[in-house]
């Protein structure tokens, strides 16, 4: 039986109550307890810094050349917090409720409420670290709106919020490195978890420069290794983002929660050709001010500026008047796909819609002219002033669009299309963020817990930092308090020997295949299967085909992959091959999970289950549970954690 260890009592007291009664570790004992942290994004860096400050001996690992480069850095738009600085009716309850509803009632209430509670502390902490959030002229913090909410609770730093938050956490981490509390291992990749007597006791890591395998002991292991969106090959994830650490943990007994819950982000720069290596997001914050439309006429050959207002279909405003362009991501993505599939798409591929800033530029321009006392300004003067405002708010995003497409978004509407962005699924964890392997934790995007079937914008940064700064420092102590008598287990222990040998054997096996096809080419093929059959819309026949195709691909991979270079050297091809092998296995599990979930919810859209208006049709009677998959050699076994909603009662999710 899965025990989520949710504390008893009323929802809004659970966390306070938990903190008041949780076991503590005294400072002297902390010094002899070692904690391994995999990944140095927002979750990993904040956890490493905070645990180092508490006095634990921390070892942190990242595959990049510096912890500052983890992919959290690329988050653009912002971070939510229930500060209610705008006096617009926000509260912890509202943030909790919006998140549960936005997740289509597939997240755990207690975790989400805790997230909303600590959200305000995150902003305080970041400002204290010197994170330069956007400010108003009075010197106070500025906010903007994100999808799925009707309040302004998103804090931001231009379009580089993730960068600024990560630099804050990175600096806190480096301070602990300087103080000797954290030992940092860059260009290292975790390749297995070492389990001794049922508990996670260390890892096997590969030094990516020398190729050497290393053994590291820890009283606990924290996976902060991010999401697995790259299973689709094309996504907004970084090239190196991978599932390997989480997958190794899964194979060592950690259940995988809701693997099919993936987020397709509505506003990304469209694919241009087969050479495409990744996709670039255009922040959701752009939907604050931009308007999304397609021509009312199918296959309209005209340029966007030649299409008069009356012949444009602002389909989000038309379909969802209450939320308009700020509907949640899953809804906006499906609506874009629906228009393109129906023949209204734009651009040469016809797989794009317009995101238009003309009216925002005019609106801001008029406000600025009034501020500056310019009477009867000409259209050109209004435009100039408006462009200045838009530049300040979104300049870096507009520049990025211009560099990638060669088009000027200040004069032409941007062309955008949905792309894989985030994975709500991940390792199953209990309230304390512990996986089904005692002593093995998962934080941030690597776990499944807070976003249900669809994550709201600006909530990933919030969750990563909540887990690292404010949750794990309490919950980890509750476990480690029972470990103070466990001395350091020598890395000569047979379990370490065995794990290292298994890793080494697998690497040799991969290398010795000596086939003809590159790891990259297999990754591309996997991505195509996943996007076509387990992407924005899924159906039974397609998923069954996908499972067969993935199995065949796996067999072909292990027969015909070619890895150049040697094992004992810097060899990105070898790193890539190992990651692709894991993605292939994960891809199968995602399809198995999507097939099992015969309902539509959030980002998981089963074509068989939709309302007459084409909206997702949930089935609370049969699917109000977390699917937690246990790895077995011959397949997977499904365990269910029932979701109980005591406060936010499930209703049809409507943004009309």
């Amino acid at each position: 039986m899965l025990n989520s260890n949710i504390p008893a009592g009323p929802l809004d007291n659970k966390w306070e109550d938990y903190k008041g009664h949780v076991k503590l570790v005294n400072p002297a004992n902390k010094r002899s307890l070692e904690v391994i942290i995999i990944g140095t994004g927002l979750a990993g860096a904040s956890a490493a810094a905070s645990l180092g400050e508490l006095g634990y001996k921390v070892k942190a690992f990242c595959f990049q050349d510096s912890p500052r480069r983890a992919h959290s850095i690329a988050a653009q738009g912002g971070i939510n917090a229930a500060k209610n600085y705008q006096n617009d009716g926000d509260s912890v309850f509202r943030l909790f409720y919006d998140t549960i509803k936005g997740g289509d009632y597939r997240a755990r209430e207690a975790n989400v409420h805790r997230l909303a509670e600590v959200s305000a502390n995150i902003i305080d902490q970041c400002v204290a670290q010197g994170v330069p959030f956007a400010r108003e002229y009075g010197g106070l913090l500025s906010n903007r709106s994100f999808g799925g909410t009707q309040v302004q609770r998103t804090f931001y730093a231009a379009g580089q919020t993730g960068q600024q938050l990560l630099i804050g956490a990175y600096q806190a981490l480096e301070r602990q490195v300087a103080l000797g509390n954290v030992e940092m291992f860059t260009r290292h990749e975790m390749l297995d978890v070492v389990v001794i007597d049922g508990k996670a006791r260390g890892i096997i890591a590969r030094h990516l420069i020398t190729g050497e395998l290393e053994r590291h002991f820890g009283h606990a292991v924290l996976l902060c290794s991010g999401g697995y969106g790259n299973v689709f090959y094309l996504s907004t994830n970084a090239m190196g983002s991978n599932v390997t650490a989480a997958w190794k943990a899964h194979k060592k007994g950690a259940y995988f929660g809701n693997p099919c819950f993936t987020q397709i982000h509505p506003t990304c720069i469209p694919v241009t050709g087969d050479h495409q290596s990744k996709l670039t997001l255009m922040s959701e914050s752009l939907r604050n001010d931009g308007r999304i439309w397609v021509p009312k006429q199918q296959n309209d050959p005209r340029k966007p500026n030649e299409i008069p207002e009356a012949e444009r279909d602002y389909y989000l405003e038309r379909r969802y008047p209450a939320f308009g362009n700020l509907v949640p991501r899953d809804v906006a993505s499906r609506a874009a796909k629906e228009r393109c599939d129906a023949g209204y798409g734009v651009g040469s591929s016809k797989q794009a819609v317009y995101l238009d800033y003309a009216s925002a530029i005019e609106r801001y321009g008029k406000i600025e002219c009034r501020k500056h006392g310019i009477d009867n300004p000409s259209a050109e003067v209004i435009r100039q002033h408006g462009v200045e405002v838009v530049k300040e708010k979104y300049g870096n995003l507009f520049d990025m669009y211009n560099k990638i497409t060669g088009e000027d978004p200040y004069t032409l509407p941007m062309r955008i299309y949905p792309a894989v962005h985030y994975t709500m699924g991940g390792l199953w964890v209990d309230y304390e963020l512990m996986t089904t392997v005692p002593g093995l934790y998962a934080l941030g995007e690597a776990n499944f817990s807070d976003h249900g079937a669809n994550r709201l914008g600006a909530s990933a940064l919030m969750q990563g930092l909540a887990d690292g700064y404010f949750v794990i420092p309490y919950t980890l102590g509750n476990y480690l308090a029972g470990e103070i008598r466990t001395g350091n287990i020598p890395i000569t222990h047979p379990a370490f020997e065995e794990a290292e040998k298994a890793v080494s054997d697998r690497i040799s096996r991969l290398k010795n295949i000596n086939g003809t096809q590159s790891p990259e080419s297999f990754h591309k093929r996997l991505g195509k299967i996943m996007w076509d059959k387990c992407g924005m819309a899924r159906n039974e026949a397609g998923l069954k085909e996908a499972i067969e195709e993935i199995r065949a691909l796996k067999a072909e991979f292990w027969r015909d992959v070619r890895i150049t270079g040697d094992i004992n050297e810097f060899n990105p091809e070898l790193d890539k091959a190992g990651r692709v092998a894991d993605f292939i296995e994960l891809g199968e599990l995602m399809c198995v999970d999507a097939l099992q979930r015969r309902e539509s919810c959030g980002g998981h859209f089963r074509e068989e289950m939709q309302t007459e208006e084409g909206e997702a049709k949930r089935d609370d009677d049969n699917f109000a549970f977390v699917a937690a998959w246990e790895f077995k050699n011959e397949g997977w076994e499904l365990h269910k954690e029932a979701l109980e909603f005591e406060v936010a009662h499930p209703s049809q999710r409507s943004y009309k």
Partner: protein
Amino acid sequence: MEHYTMNLTLKVWRQKNKKEKGGFETYSVNDISSEMSFLEMIDVLNERLVREGKDPIAFDHDCREGICGMCSMYINGRPHGPWEGTTTCQLHMRAFKDGDTIVVEPWRANAFPVIKDLVVDRSSFDRIIQAGGYISVNTGNAVDANAIPIEKDKADTAFAAAACIGCGACVAACKNSSALLFVSAKISHLALLPQGGPERKTRVEAMVAQMDKEGFGSCTSTGACEAVCPKEISITNIARLNTEYGIAGLTSDK
């Protein structure tokens, strides 16, 4: 935007590892689309090298959206290539034309030793941050985020400095391999904010000392760093660092 394809000659620095001597190899690549990014063009070449059973070109890259700071190619004599305010990953092939020869090298600086081909070791930057590039505040100690108002101009200037991605282009562009633009961006970011005030003097002294220890050269004052910075970090940050350093030297108690 009109698209076109091109055939190119690439001269790429190949070096097996830190110890062995490197040299240029010449490759021709054909049918490159102007819509590709520069790194996607390298991907095409690498795919071919793998098919031919040769070792692909090693290069650092990750986010491919200009923010992680991992990519680091010295293209035709300029860090990150010909476009201003652009990282290598955001450079697109429409910057080139059919028949061009493109020379690609790693960052060159004693403090950035080559690991393989175009990959260099920039851990010296992390050690400079460790020396003092932070505000000493433990988790949980913070006051309300709006307790201290900060003038918008100051916050904006701090943000502009904090936009540094730590890629090292400034070092690669400098004939002395100075890291002063990188260090000054961090000094400015933290010195401009009230939260960074208490550690202002010790921070600048410790970070400059660590920079010297890592083997970075002294500032040439030519502004090459600013000219190539993909995030357009201003050289005025170096002036601010010099002021901070001077004040610290004159008034520090230590």
